[in-house]
């Protein structure tokens, strides 16, 4: 078989971080190649180098055997590379047609020939079976449709090599099936595909061959039909990992105990004023971890924001310690010792330019010991922070550092330190490990389990099914704003939950 694309010893540094260390890969014609690795393993960096968005510090790229250098994505596109980013590069306010032709518009004297463009797109979408309405605005399309637009965008530019970054991360299972079909069809039309993913399942199902990356290096190359998932997983993480269960199955301590936190018939609307949560009820008992599983965009964000207090419920109540808190201000909720770890660490969780000690105090900064009357007590800020920085192993251990200078994992520890030091009885944990490396993930999981041992009731919202399975005592499946199924940890498997997440439960 012919090699269409090859990289040799690509090196890419960001400051002191080596994002790619001498990465060499090959892509054959009509191949579906997997690039497997954890978050931060350097997959996306490599793809951005291939696509001309980053310039490598060293190394070469060969296309059909000839060395090429991409100054910008324009070069890469011209040479037949197409890329579908994990976060779609679509302009929401423009139409499908405008998005597809953007940058390569058919035009005379700068005036776009929309009729011609529409015809071309209709042609393309028929020959590849990618059906979309060319006049719809992107903001009105489903995620699956948006992905099809992205693929069309690449095909419109006559891409021969298609790079897909985490293509199934945001799709529902049905959409995933459709996506697989599309990929096979593309291959049959002569297109070579690279799929970047951290999902073992996906690599096994769809790819022919896969490279496994870890901390910026290629650590393995496998034919995917012969290899086991466990082997792939070990390569990916670099040591034996137990795919699940650090947790000892525990029983609810006393079934007679009353729940610490209740969500009662909650209804919430989203930013566009459409129902996002449609009447859900959850009881969380002390010492219990309740996991909310679901595909992104099924109401997780709205649920978390309502519990934090950023969003007010349309109907229903939240009850904490037998007290109705749904009308309480955010400040009052914090001072009632409700802990919360928001999903968007840097946007909602922390004020990055402020000091670590200030981020630890914020929320309680208006009470003793942090302040009295009007004045802040900086000594007490520091005293508390020094204690917590030690206890949570936050590095570097300097509470007067700006939080922005900490790594993602340490930033998350600052949030955990803040919330736990307030001795909550209930804790909302939303997406606690997104974008963190394995070490940090493990640390944070341990902490969450420790908390539940201390009889804190925990509501865990995560898009990572593995995480939900590893930590939860009970698992609720959230779909279209409703709880459609409850599993105990014993009976839960990712297959069963996955079926409910996607609405394909009747198997």
């Amino acid at each position: 078989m012919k090699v269409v694309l090859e990289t040799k010893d690509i090196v890419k540094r960001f400051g002191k971080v080596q994002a790619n260390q001498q990465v060499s890969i090959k892509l054959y014609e009509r191949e579906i190649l997997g690039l497997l690795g954890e978050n931060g393993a350097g997959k996306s960096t490599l793809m951005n180098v291939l696509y001309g968005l980053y310039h490598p510090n060293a190394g070469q790229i060969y296309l059909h055997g000839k060395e090429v250098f991409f100054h910008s994505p324009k070069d890469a596109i011209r040479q037949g590379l197409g890329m579908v980013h994990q976060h779609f590069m679509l302009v929401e306010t423009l139409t499908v047609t405008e998005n597809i032709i953007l940058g390569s518009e058919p035009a005379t004297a700068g005036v776009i020939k929309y009729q011609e463009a529409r015809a071309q797109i209709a042609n393309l979408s028929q020959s590849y079976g990618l059906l979309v309405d060319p006049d719809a605005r992107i903001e009105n399309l489903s995620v699956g449709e948006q992905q099809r637009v992205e693929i069309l965008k690449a095909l419109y530019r006559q891409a021969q090599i298609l790079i897909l970054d985490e293509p199934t991360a945001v799709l529902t299972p049905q959409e995933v099936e459709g996506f697989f079909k599309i990929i096979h069809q593309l291959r049959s039309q002569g297109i070579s595909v690279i799929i970047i993913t951290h999902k073992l399942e996906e690599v096994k199902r769809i790819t022919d061959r896969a490279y496994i990356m870890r901390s910026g290096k290629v650590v393995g190359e496998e034919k995917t039909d012969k290899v086991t998932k466990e082997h792939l997983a070990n390569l990916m993480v670099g040591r034996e990992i137990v795919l699940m269960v650090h947790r000892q199955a525990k029983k609810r301590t006393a079934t007679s105990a009353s729940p610490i936190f209740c969500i009662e018939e909650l209804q919430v609307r989203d930013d566009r004023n459409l129902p996002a949560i449609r009447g859900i009820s959850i009881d969380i008992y002390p010492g219990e971890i309740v996991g909310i599983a679901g595909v992104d965009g099924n109401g997780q964000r709205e649920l978390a924001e309502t519990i934090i207090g950023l969003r007010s419920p349309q109907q229903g109540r939240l009850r904490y310690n037998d007290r109705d808190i749904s009308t309480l201000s955010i400040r009052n909720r914090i001072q009632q010792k409700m802990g919360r770890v928001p999903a968007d660490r840097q946007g909602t969780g922390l004020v990055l330019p402020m000091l670590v000690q200030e981020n630890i105090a914020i929320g309680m900064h208006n009470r003793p010991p942090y302040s009295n009357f009007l004045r802040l007590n900086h000594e007490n800020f520091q005293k508390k922070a020094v204690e917590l920085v030690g206890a949570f192993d936050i590095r570097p251990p300097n509470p007067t550092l700006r939080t922005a200078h900490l790594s993602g994992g340490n930033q998350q520890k600052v949030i955990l330190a803040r919330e736990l030091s307030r001795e909550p009885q209930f804790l909302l944990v939303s997406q606690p490990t997104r974008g963190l490396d394995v070490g940090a993930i493990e640390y944070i999981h341990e902490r969450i389990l420790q908390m539940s041992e201390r009889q804190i009731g925990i509501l865990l919202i995560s898009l990572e099914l593995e995480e939900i399975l590893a930590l939860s005592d009970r698992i609720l499946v959230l779909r279209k704003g409703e709880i459609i199924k409850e599993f105990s940890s014993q009976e839960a498997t990712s297959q069963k939950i996955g079926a409910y997440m996607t609405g394909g439960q009747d198997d």
Partner: protein
Amino acid sequence: MTNNQQPSSSVLYRRGVAIVIRVLLIVATMIGVVLYLASNFWAMALIILMPLLLLFHREHGDIAALWQRSILPFLRTITIPAIGFTTAFIVGAIIMIITGDNPLLAYGALFYGGFVKNWSISLLNAVPLIFTGLAICFAFRAGLFNIGAEGQYYVGAMVTAALGIYLDIPGFLAIPLLFIIGGLLAASYNIIPTLLKVKTGAHEVITTMMLAHVARLLSPLMIRNFGGHISSPHPLVTYEISERLWLPLFSSFLPNAYYRLHTGILIAIGVALCTHYVINHTKIGFEIRAVGYNRRAARAQGISVGKIYAVALLGSGLLAGLSGVVEVLGLNHKLFENINAGYGWNGISVALLAGNNPIAIIFTAILWGALDAGGQYMQRNVQTPNSIVEIIKGIVLFLLVAKYLYTFVFQKIRRKQS
């Protein structure tokens, strides 16, 4: 750290030296302040020692630590401003050469006039700038841009001129009263932008700017009602306020002070210190900073963003209003039509130059004031038009604000070398 141990003799010796130096510094500074205010320019050198003294005190008298932790970083932080100033002055020199002026003479006059000869005018100029600079800074820390500070300045000035004409009570009662009333009314002038910002999200840049024009355009109406006559030649002017309300001049209690500097400068410095304290050491200041850096995270921690916006915009209006009050009470004693010398815009310059640090604003305002005073002196004595100062100010501002410029230039140089 060594709480339980007996301090060794060398430590004791060092502490002894430190105490002696500290006492000397305090005495020297006190003498310096007195001498300076009594018009001895060369006492300035002693005044410069004051910040050093403060830092020295902070480091518990350890000179090595002082050098490492304060002086060295200070030198590093002023490198870029120094480059900016030098560049601006070079550009100014080039313009002068083109227009046929002698830059050496002009700059000589500029500095001699601004920092030596007419230093008191520099300080006089700085007084309103400190207030407007603080006003811009206070809103900026909450992420808001009170670009219309000039409008609140007018309100403060108008209120003071109007009340000052009729208020016939002793100064020690009336002056604080005017500061309070003028400040509060100026703050209330920002109520509309505040409400619109919080309720509808209308951008404060547009609303405050429009209100600034409204205040400026309405001022003749007010002036006519308090003494100005349409028939009188321009500029329109109100009656003078009662002499009991004038801020005392330094010359009224310092025998050697022949200059016209009024005590407003002390009030300005005091207010700057208060603003610094509020921003860095109070709950509301903490919340202002949090909202300014990341309003979403601040909100998630129970801070009311609307409340902080209101505090910041109204507080900013108050500070800008005080600027008008102090100008009328201290310097003009009446209100002219279009008395503006662009205090709002200059306040923005001063605040940006100071990196929105209230203490630094004192110094940048004095610097700006000195450039103005020196410019006047330069025009009188070497006939270089003082409007060149406006150009220099603009370039300095641009070069200091565009911090990325230096990274950009260094990168280009390095790339060329490699």
